[in-house]
């Protein structure tokens, strides 16, 4: 008889979780009676017998604050009891810990399933309770819900979501002897995400008599096995092969034609190649584009490793699990680079629709506030529980992210230049090395993630693509593997992400020249998985290693001691083949060459028609004070403190510039600085740039502005502009023209232009691209509706600051300091937040002048190193007016500004000077004693526009010397903090 255990707070104690749930419910259902009450209790089901009650109490109950009920209702004082538990096979971290606790006590294994019950009181109907459960408390994709009344709770059966597949694993052959339609149908039905040409390439491969002859020798038939077809589909997926970035593209612009052979090679790799060549000995790149993350120099003894990824599609289905998996997943990229890096910080950037979205939602789309809260919490748990500080990020709002939210997660690591006598950034695998899988077990989680994310999101999107990360299993794994690394116990490491083993072993096998995977060896969460599922499962927290046979015993011993499961699942070979066996029979035998290089190259068309139409007249607000308050309350400008505070940004003890800064530690930091090696005065700087609004005008300038934003954020905190590198993360809407996607050529042209800008500006700024990622199908297709995201690029910059004590924050420091604006203000309001606030897009998108910007950034760095600068803040969304307000209220000091002193284009009016988003501008304050020295560095590029004052007011004089804005800081700050004060 299983035990049903309920644990709740003792009477009289404040139920904080219940109160928070109530707040969430009332936010989702504003019409509900405010007097409802919500109580939260934990529910566990232990599948087993003969447990001592004292053991159960020791494991599950804190006797100081909690009461426990065993096989009886905890209470019957409620109107509705909403129990939420996981569906079979969904990762249940709490259940896993509970089972572990019982194991510590009894040395026996008891499966435990966790759940949570929300006890609702008040005037609520069953319908209302069920709606609350569905819209607020549970995600029916991964969770089961029961809504029970006070008498229904009596004799309620325990919820035991055990997986019983009742399936005898088998390998099936798949016939590709089909006509075109049949091939397309097969691809769609099996979520292969392969196009007709790719399907035909595979069909002709298997039809080749020579191929058949070799297969016959291995005991394989004349058809491909499902193991082989699925391996090919995932290896050839857009997600893994970046087919669009490697396609041959015919690009047409203003009647001019151009053929581009691979965007990636031409522009991204090309930029880095050219920058490295001209840098010569000053080249900071160590390993670029070849591994899971980019590697640059830090000191003589250490390298920095950095990677940013997206996890958009899973986050659309299950925001919590998707985002959690996103962050712990990207952790494994620097961790799986070379022979492994210690992780030093995370950065996160999210793109959501308005959390107050009030229109009807298309099918299968979750409300933006659920996406927001789920993603926020997923990243909170993933980052905080892993002990990696979340030091920087931002949130962008646009209702076109309703169909797919963007969840960018990034992680940096640090690795010694050499470990146990070998260079740490190189993977070395030899034939005969054993393939070992360490960490979690394999289940059906995330099967087809790689191919699923290579399609648009639609009503029938597979739900098996959802995984939930487990940061503690991963923490144990990383603790163990760093120790094994330092002992020299393995030769190479890589992570299991998209495509699972087929991808990790498939890629590693290129280094030795082949592999043999025994698919009956990997440990499974439950029986009944087919061999192809074992190969493709994206179950989390797993690393794949190459281990020399002489080290295997020591490796496995240490693994067992540190409570990590490691299994030998095969060996690397030099056969030239990707071979898998199951029960000693060969079930896959594919030439590596075909697997990795057999995918036919796409040939695509792109056409660009520039919009040439002047901006509309800039609307002038009647009340500039009120307009500024409104601007500060815009979602893209307002405070994100609610999210930032819930992320641990100081663990590891090296935090220098935090995400929240200023007098009351609530100002918006431009970038972060950390000291990854305590005791060393050299720091690491990280920043981000993202401006998707400008894509509505021209993705060329959008990309230039994103890079410039990241770089100017970086220099504002003191980052060295001669030791920087960046990552590009493209999130696009489908750029391949088809019947369902008639404007594909335009979207591809947008992609081409973005790449051209990336090349032009990375080279101009001498900022090498070291790694990146693309996610190309961020569209939603529902009945009669298609939602495409605006083309979005995130640029993440990493670099160094030579002396952390020189680092700088954005808040004004002292009354009497002089305020300078670096850079020119032009009539560039196209795509601006100001225009957006007036319902206008316009066309005057900001353009970056890289040459003057780079000189400015170097001068600023020189001034910062000379301790001449008191504060520096970048101008971005909302331009000068917003930057002034932020620096003022963050420093708790007023400012008086004269717009006449701003270096601006002739003909601009006050409003345009206030809200123009011209790039490369920085607001700086300088103590009067340092002004002369400061001026001499900038030689005219720095214009003194006002001074910091002791009064708590923002005062801006107009171009004709009138009082344009005069407002107290408290009200400015209140407006800025109000929107996301959840």
């Amino acid at each position: 008889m299983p035990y049903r255990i309920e644990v709740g707070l003792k009477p009289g104690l404040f139920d904080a979780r219940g109160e928070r749930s109530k707040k969430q419910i009332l936010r989702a259902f504003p019409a509900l009676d405010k007097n409802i009450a919500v109580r939260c209790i934990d529910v566990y089901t232990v599948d087993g017998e003969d447990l001592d009650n004292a053991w159960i109490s020791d494991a599950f109950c804190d006797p100081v604050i909690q009461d426990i009920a065993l096989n009886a209702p905890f209470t019957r004082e409620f109107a509705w009891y909403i129990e939420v538990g996981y569906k079979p096979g969904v990762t249940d971290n709490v259940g896993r810990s509970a089972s572990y606790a019982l194991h510590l006590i009894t040395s026996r294994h008891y499966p435990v399933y966790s759940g949570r019950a929300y006890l609702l009181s008040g005037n609520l109907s069953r319908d209302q309770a069920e709606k609350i459960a569905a819209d607020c408390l549970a995600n029916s994709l991964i969770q089961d819900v029961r809504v029970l009344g006070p008498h229904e709770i009596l004799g309620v059966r325990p919820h035991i979501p055990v997986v019983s597949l009742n399936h005898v694993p088998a390998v099936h052959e798949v016939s590709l002897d089909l006509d075109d339609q049949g091939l397309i149908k097969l691809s769609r039905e099996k979520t292969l995400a392969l196009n007709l040409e790719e399907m035909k390439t595979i069909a002709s491969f298997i039809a080749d008599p020579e191929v058949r002859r070799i297969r016959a020798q291995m005991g394989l038939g004349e058809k491909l096995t499902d193991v082989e077809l699925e391996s090919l589909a995932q290896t050839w997926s857009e997600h893994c092969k970046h087919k669009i970035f490697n396609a041959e593209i015919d690009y047409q612009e203003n009647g001019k034609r151009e053929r581009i052979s691979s965007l990636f090679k031409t522009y991204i790799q090309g930029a880095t190649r050219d920058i490295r060549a001209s840098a010569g000995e000053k080249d900071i790149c160590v390993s670029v584009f070849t591994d899971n993350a980019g590697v640059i120099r830090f000191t003589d003894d250490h390298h920095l490793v950095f990677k940013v990824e997206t996890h958009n599609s899973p986050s659309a289905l299950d925001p919590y699990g998707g985002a959690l998996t996103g962050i712990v997943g990207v952790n494994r990229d620097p961790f799986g680079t070379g022979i492994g890096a210690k992780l030093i910080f995370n950065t996160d950037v999210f793109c959501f629709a308005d959390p107050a979205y009030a229109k009807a939602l298309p099918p299968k789309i979750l409300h933006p506030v659920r996406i927001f809260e789920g993603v926020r919490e997923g990243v909170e748990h993933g980052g905080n529980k892993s002990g990696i500080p979340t030091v920087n990020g931002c949130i962008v709002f646009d209702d076109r992210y309703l169909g797919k939210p963007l969840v960018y997660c990034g992680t940096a690591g640090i690795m010694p230049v050499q470990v146990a006598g070998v260079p740490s950034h190189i993977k070395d695998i030899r034939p005969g090395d054993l393939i070992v899988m360490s960490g979690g077990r394999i289940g059906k989680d995330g099967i087809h993630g790689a191919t699923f994310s290579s399609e648009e999101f639609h009503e029938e999107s597979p739900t098996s693509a959802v995984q939930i990360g487990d940061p503690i299993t991963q923490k144990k794994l990383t603790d163990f593997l760093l120790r094994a690394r330092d002992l020299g116990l393995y030769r190479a490491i890589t992570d299991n992400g998209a495509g699972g083993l087929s991808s990790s072993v498939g890629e590693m096998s290129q280094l030795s020249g082949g592999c043999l995977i025994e698919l009956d060896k990997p440990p499974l969460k439950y029986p009944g998985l087919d061999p192809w599922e074992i190969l493709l499962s994206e179950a989390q927290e797993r690393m794949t290693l190459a281990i020399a046979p002489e080290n295997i015993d020591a490796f496995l011993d240490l693994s067992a001691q540190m409570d990590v499961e490691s299994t030998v699942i095969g060996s690397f070979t030099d056969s030239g083949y990707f071979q898998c066996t199951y029960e000693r029979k060969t079930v896959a035998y594919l030439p590596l060459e075909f697997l990795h290089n057999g995918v036919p190259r796409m040939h695509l068309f792109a056409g660009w028609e520039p919009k040439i139409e002047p901006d509309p007249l800039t609307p002038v607000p009647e009340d500039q004070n009120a307009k500024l308050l409104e601007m500060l309350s815009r979602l893209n400008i307002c405070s994100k403190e609610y999210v930032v505070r819930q992320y641990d940004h100081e663990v590891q003890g090296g935090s220098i510039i935090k995400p929240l800064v200023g007098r009351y530690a609530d100002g918006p930091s431009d970038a972060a600085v950390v000291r990854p090696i305590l005791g060393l005065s050299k720091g690491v700087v990280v920043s981000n740039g993202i401006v998707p609004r400008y894509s509505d005008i021209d993705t060329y300038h959008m990309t230039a502005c994103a890079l410039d934003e990241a770089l100017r954020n970086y220099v504002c905190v003191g980052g060295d502009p001669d030791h920087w590198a960046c990552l590009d993360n493209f999130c696009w809407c489908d750029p391949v023209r088809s019947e369902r996607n008639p404007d594909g050529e335009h979207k591809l042209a947008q992609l081409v232009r973005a790449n051209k800008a990336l090349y032009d500006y990375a080279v101009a700024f001498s900022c090498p691209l070291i790694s990146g990622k693309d996610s190309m199908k961020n569209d939603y297709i529902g009945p009669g509706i298609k939602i495409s995201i605006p083309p979005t690029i995130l640029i993440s910059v990493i670099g160094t600051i030579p002396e952390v004590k020189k680092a700088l924050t954005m808040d004004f420091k002292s009354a009497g300091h002089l305020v300078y604006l670096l850079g020119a203000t032009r009539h560039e309001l196209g795509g601006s937040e100001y225009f957006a606030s007036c319902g206008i897009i316009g066309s005057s998108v900001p353009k970056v002048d890289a040459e003057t910007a780079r000189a400015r950034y170097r001068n600023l760095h020189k001034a910062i190193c000379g301790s001449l600068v008191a504060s520096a803040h970048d101008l971005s969304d909302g331009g000068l007016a917003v930057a002034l307000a932020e620096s003022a209220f963050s420093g708790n000091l007023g400012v008086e500004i004269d717009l006449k002193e701003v270096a601006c284009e002739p003909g601009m009016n006050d409003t345009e000077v206030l809200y123009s988003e011209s790039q490369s501008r920085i607001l700086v304050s300088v103590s009067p004693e340092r002004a002369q020295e400061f001026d001499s560095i900038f030689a005219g590029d720095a214009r003194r526009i006002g001074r910091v004052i002791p009064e708590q007011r923002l005062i801006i004089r107009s171009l004709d010397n009138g009082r344009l804005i005069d407002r107290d800081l408290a009200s400015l700050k209140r407006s800025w903090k109000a929107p996301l004060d959840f």
Partner: protein
Amino acid sequence: MAQIKALVITGFGTNCEMEMSYACSRAGALSDVVHISDVLNGSTRLADYHFLNLPGGFLDGDDLGSAQVESVRLKYARIQTSGRTLFEEIRDFIDRGMIILGVCNGFQALVKSGLLPGNPVGKRRVSLSFNDSAKFEDRWVRLAVDPQSPCIFTRGLDRIFLPVRHGEGKFVCDSDATLGEIRNSRLAVLKYADDSYMPTMDYPANPNGSIDAIAGICDPSGRIFGLMPHPEAFNHPTNHPAWTRLKELPEKGEGMVIFENAVEFLKGII
């Protein structure tokens, strides 16, 4: 002079071990970071150390409540070589007159295993529950130090400024009697305080709603100290959240005093 040896336990979700060890070393101790599995297999012995550090983190994910599974581990898991429990080893360590510092998750482990307030040793009488906000929060707090407390870690201090980073830090007692005893024995070493360093119940200065604004307690001997704020995270002046506003940068982070006091105390007894 004898070398002070600090042991920093890590593993299974602990994550502040490096900065804790750094603070111990900077304070003059020889510090080892040791995975708990090395203690359980007998290769590391508490008997070889003077200063036991239980750092912050999320042991076992805090999945059954903060440090709940850790309290089970201390009580039930046995050391392979000796067959004794970790709890028994720690008791011996305490009986030898040595000192223990538990920060955040380490503090939670100390109260949940009954090592704090430690009268009687092993009985859980206080706990750390969900913050009233039900949120994990990272923010800096002012702390008033009770100069009358027996705590050896806070000697010479009357205030300290440190970060908290937790979701379960609300100090609660099982009874008024326990709270009375904590008050009478001056065990409430640290209290969340307002701008003028007076104890406060007001959020966010008191970030979690702790009773009596208690942020950290010691045992009656003053040698076992647990606190929610992170002294090891203020190991350098640039950790201060507004250090760029300070006219003069102090020489070191305020949190270092806790570790220096620990080493100083041990120097006097070994």
